């Protein structure tokens, strides 16, 4: 119900990065990373502060140009496409830090998520679906986004991302700075999203929780991929345990 039909079969990977390099000006942040996401998976992307996780997300969504390497989605090369084309293809990101629009109401925020849906009826129906899924947001539909609580803002950010009916959702640190009970709700929601047929890339500081729900995970360190494995394998891995699980 949530997702559009994912791009027709082809290579097994829905999203793949090959030797991706990018950065800001002279500063290269990602030194040729590769990553693969299969249809229907939750893939966790872990790494310390400044490792380049947000940068990778920005590159995939077309906000940051790649200087080398290739990004393909559904068997199609999307390197260099502008962000709106990439959203139109079904890849959406929920940015780090709950970047909702504070002066727009909850409803208007959701409307912006459906910006590329030209049909007004379809947009309204999408907003109603989102309200059915997020009753707390429905209660606050005419309240400016900036007046929501942190947890509600994160829900709104995710709901806004869902409005474009993505096939692939890139979540950047959705649990950051939230109370434990809200963190639970966020992780439940991520499971629900995947159950709705959406493939998920999950960037998280919370390695324990994210590896628990992830099928596979990657570990990024200073712009290079150093580990890859199933969620369970990474949870048990010495390096992950030492640096990210405090064990």
């Amino acid at each position: 119900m949530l997702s559009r039909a994912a791009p027709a079969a082809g290579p097994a990977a829905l999203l793949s990065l090959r030797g991706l390099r990018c950065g800001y000006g002279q500063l290269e942040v990602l030194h040729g990373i590769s990553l693969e996401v299969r249809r229907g998976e939750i893939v966790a992307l872990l790494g310390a502060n400044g490792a380049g996780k947000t940068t990778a997300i920005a590159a995939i969504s077309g906000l940051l140009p790649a200087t080398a390497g290739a990004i393909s989605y559904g068997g199609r090369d999307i390197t260099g496409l502008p962000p709106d084309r990439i959203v139109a293809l079904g890849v959406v990101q929920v940015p780090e830090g709950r970047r909702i629009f504070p002066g727009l109401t909850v409803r208007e925020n959701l409307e912006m998520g459906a910006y590329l849906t030209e049909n007004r009826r379809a947009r309204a129906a999408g907003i109603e679906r989102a309200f059915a899924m997020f009753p707390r947001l429905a209660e606050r539909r005419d309240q400016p986004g900036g007046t929501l609580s942190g947890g509600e803002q994160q829900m709104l950010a995710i709901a806004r991302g869902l409005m474009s009916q993505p096939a692939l959702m890139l979540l950047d640190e959705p649990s950051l700075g939230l109370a434990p009970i809200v963190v639970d709700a966020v992780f439940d929601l991520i499971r629900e999203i995947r159950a709705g047929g959406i493939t998920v890339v999950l960037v998280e500081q919370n390695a324990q929780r994210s590896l628990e729900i992830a099928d596979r995970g990657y570990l990024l360190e200073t712009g290079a991929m150093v580990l890859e494995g199933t969620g369970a394998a990474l949870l048990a891995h010495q390096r992950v345990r030492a640096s990210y699980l405090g064990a």
Partner: protein
Amino acid sequence: MSGRLKYLIWPLWIAVLVWPFTKLRGALIVLAAAAAGSALLFVLRSWAPRIALPAMPRLASFSGHTKTGLLIALVLFSLALPLCLNKYFLDVVVTAGIYVVLALGLNIIVGLAGLLVLGYIAFYAVGAYGYAILSTHFHLNFFWALPIGALLALLAGLLLGLPTLRLRGDYLAIVTLGFGEIMRIVLNNWDGLTGGPNGIMHIGRPAIGALALGRPTHLYYIVLALIALAALLTSRLNRSRLGRALVAMREDETAARACGIDTTRLKVLAFCLSAAVAGLMGVVFAAKMSFVSPESFTFWESVMVLCMVVLGGMASVPGVILGALALIVLPEAFRGLQHYRMLVFGAAMIAMMIFRPQGLLPSRRRTLELGE
């Protein structure tokens, strides 16, 4: 500036500012007056916060009936105004009206899209000279010239905006500032086309066939119609999906792009709309004066229009109208203070920034953004 300190510093600052013009005695008088005003404001604000400045009406807080009533009263008042004004004041009001539309136009790019434009008056010049040339060479009718002037300015906006707006927002301010100056220099030096510093005379006044519509009263109604049109269009824009996308872009450009909003396209669109409005009013200005020269299109004019937008309350249509009227009509009313006009003006702007940075009649969203 924090808390009470601003009430203390502001009068001192004004006094120091006027000192060179008024000698010590004058400065002390100004200091006393400003301090008294400041003290009054302070008492009002701390003892009765509800009736003091911050509680100034926000239009959105009126009920539907009150609003309709106010609007009808305003329309009737505007329609009847020429009957009770002499020629001189009518002329001032028409000028003010032109600025109102200009400010509403600039508000699209500055207030709604959140991009700073410093040479806005250049687009006004494009419209004015466009009509001046077309009228004197080809006797083009004023009413035909209106859309043509708007289109010319829109094209200029497109030429300027397309390359610049791909870059970060700040560049637009610099590029438009340059464009404004280049425009003035070209107008001053291209004698063959623009008449150089002497300008162009004998520009046709508005007329339909044999019916001349060039009297101040006619101009008044023409400008009034354009104000209504501009106010209607911008408040519709404010409430449209496009307007909300502009707000989203202004609040968080990255998040907006992540939603699939093509922000470059939006910026170019907003900029071109703003430019077109200026071009339109340039035609009206040329027809009103029947004479144009580079002197009317200085950097100062751009700053004035910008101040109207900021003073009134960015993105708020009633606010921008109020700001424009305040900045044109008030200085005109205090003409006796000719030499100090700019000083008073500057002081008022700074006082605004200190006491009411969101503008006189801010839009609801702006108020939220400033975290009030």
